[in-house]
């Protein structure tokens, strides 16, 4: 009988510390994908992770890289400072929808406009998780949260923000993609985009962001599998999953690999 | 020795540059100096002011409640500031724009037709220079060659062809300053 080999070794770029996320929370999946990409690209020793504020506030405990804890929304500004000091570092911020699309909207937009050469992993689960289920800028119309108890209405709270589409207007953005952490196929696709984003940074091509549609069973009031289906059936309709921009690919003269 | 020079005029008359020239010349003469623009909060709009302190002691306050000398380049400046001068102080006035000397009997007045002089020289940018020349002669703190030297130092190279006009304006102003001082004595 042939010797068995481990096909999915635990990522070197994760510390192994048990992640404090709710059952089924796709933060864990996102962390693993990012760590695998860091390993595959061999850049762990020059990577600086920017942890922000939200459920992933402890990201620096999970990623086995240098890390800086940023205040709410300011990850892209902190990343800018680091990158301007160490252009050869590999910097990524890990931000949720409250952090990035609400309080940190200015920082992300301007970082993209400046073509800052770092990567943003943007977790969009359409709700504020850590603060217990309040409405996010990406909360869908009709979605009930603890601060939209009758469901989000345009009259009260306006429209949900599509970050990729918004950033797609900026010339400084070099790679923009929206993926979903739901099915095996989509998770594989998400990893391809994350890798592409880091490759974009390594090529010095400019700003890269991968939006990952994620679940929050706790504050959506669903079990994990219902939440996965909710993304598939409802969320993707408003937030189409695709690569919006791949400047590296354009330069290589081909489409997305 | 402590000279507190206050200058006021219209935007574009070169008030601030003129003040910096005096400060620079003072520095080069080994004095302690300061130059400060717009200290009076009521100074707004098209007017500009600055205060230059020249002293052989500590400068202390860079502002002046009662200047020992003034260069007032517009009617508005005369109306607003002339009465602040210290008793026995010197007021240099641009008589091209100010037709009546202010009623400030305790001061020495130097009336300099700065705009006319500039027209005669054929260079509108020299208005502030004849006033500085008169001030230098009137106070005796520095010579016009000191002011010309600091102008040469502060003026970008590409404007150095204006130097002869400026030096001429300084001389004409100084001539007015000297004659008036002789008259006073």
């Amino acid at each position, binding site marked *: 009988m042939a010797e068995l080999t*481990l096909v*999915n070794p635990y990522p070197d770029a994760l510390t192994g510390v048990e992640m404090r996320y709710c059952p*089924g929370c796709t*933060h864990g*999946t996102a962390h693993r994908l990012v760590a695998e990409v860091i390993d595959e690209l061999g850049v762990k020793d020059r990577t600086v992770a920017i942890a922000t504020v939200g459920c992933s506030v402890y990201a620096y405990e999970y990623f086995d890289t240098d890390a800086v804890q940023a205040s709410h929304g300011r990850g892209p500004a902190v990343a800018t400072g680091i990158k301007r000091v160490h252009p050869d570092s590999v910097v990524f911020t890990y931000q949720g929808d409250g952090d990035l699309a609400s309080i940190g909207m200015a920082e992300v937009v301007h970082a993209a406009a400046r073509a800052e050469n770092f990567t943003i992993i943007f977790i969009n689960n359409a709700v504020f998780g850590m603060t217990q289920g309040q409405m996010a800028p990406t909360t869908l119309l009709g979605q009930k949260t603890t601060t939209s108890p009758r469901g989000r209405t345009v009259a009260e709270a306006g429209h949900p923000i599509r970050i990729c589409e918004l950033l797609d207007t900026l010339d400084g953005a070099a790679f923009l993609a929206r993926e979903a952490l739901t099915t*095996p196929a989509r998770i594989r696709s998400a990893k391809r985009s994350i890798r592409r984003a880091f490759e974009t940074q390594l090529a010095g091509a400019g700003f890269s962001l991968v939006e990952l549609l994620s679940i929050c069973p706790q504050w959506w009031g669903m079990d994990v599998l219902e939440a996965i289906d909710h993304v598939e059936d409802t969320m993707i309709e408003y937030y189409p999953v695709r690569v919006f921009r791949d400047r590296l690919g354009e330069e290589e003269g081909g489409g997305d690999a | 020795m402590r000279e507190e020079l206050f200058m006021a005029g219209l935007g574009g008359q070169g008030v601030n540059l003129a003040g910096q020239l005096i400060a620079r010349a003072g520095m080069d003469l080994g004095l302690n100096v300061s130059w400060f623009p717009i200290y009076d909060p009521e100074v707004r709009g098209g007017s500009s002011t600055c205060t230059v302190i020249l002293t052989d002691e500590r400068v202390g306050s860079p502002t002046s409640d009662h200047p020992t000398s003034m260069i007032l380049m517009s009617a508005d400046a005369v109306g607003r500031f002339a009465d602040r001068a210290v008793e026995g102080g010197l007021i240099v006035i641009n008589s091209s724009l100010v037709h009546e000397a202010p009623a400030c009997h305790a001061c020495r007045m130097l009336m300099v037709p700065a705009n006319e002089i500039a027209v005669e020289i054929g260079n509108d940018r020299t208005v502030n220079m004849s006033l500085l020349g008169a001030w230098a002669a009137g106070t005796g703190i520095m010579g016009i060659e000191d002011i010309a030297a600091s102008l040469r130092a502060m003026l970008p190279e590409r404007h150095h062809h204006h130097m002869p006009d400026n030096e001429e304006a300084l001389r004409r102003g100084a001539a007015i300053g000297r004659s008036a001082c002789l008259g006073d004595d």
Partner: protein
Amino acid sequence: MPKVVIDAERCKQCMLCVRYCPRASLRLSDATTSKGYHPVEQHDEEACTGCAICALVCPSVCIEVYR
């Protein structure tokens, strides 16, 4: 024969691996973890092809696949 090793103590019973296993070889066990979850176990080792989809979808990063 491929092998799936589940770190039961880290399993949070989210059921994603159970749902997506193409061979339906996984199920909840009767055991209870220190956090009170019933961890997933492989009940049909014969069916497993070692495709690692279970590990791909596992947010707790607690499944190892040997092949």
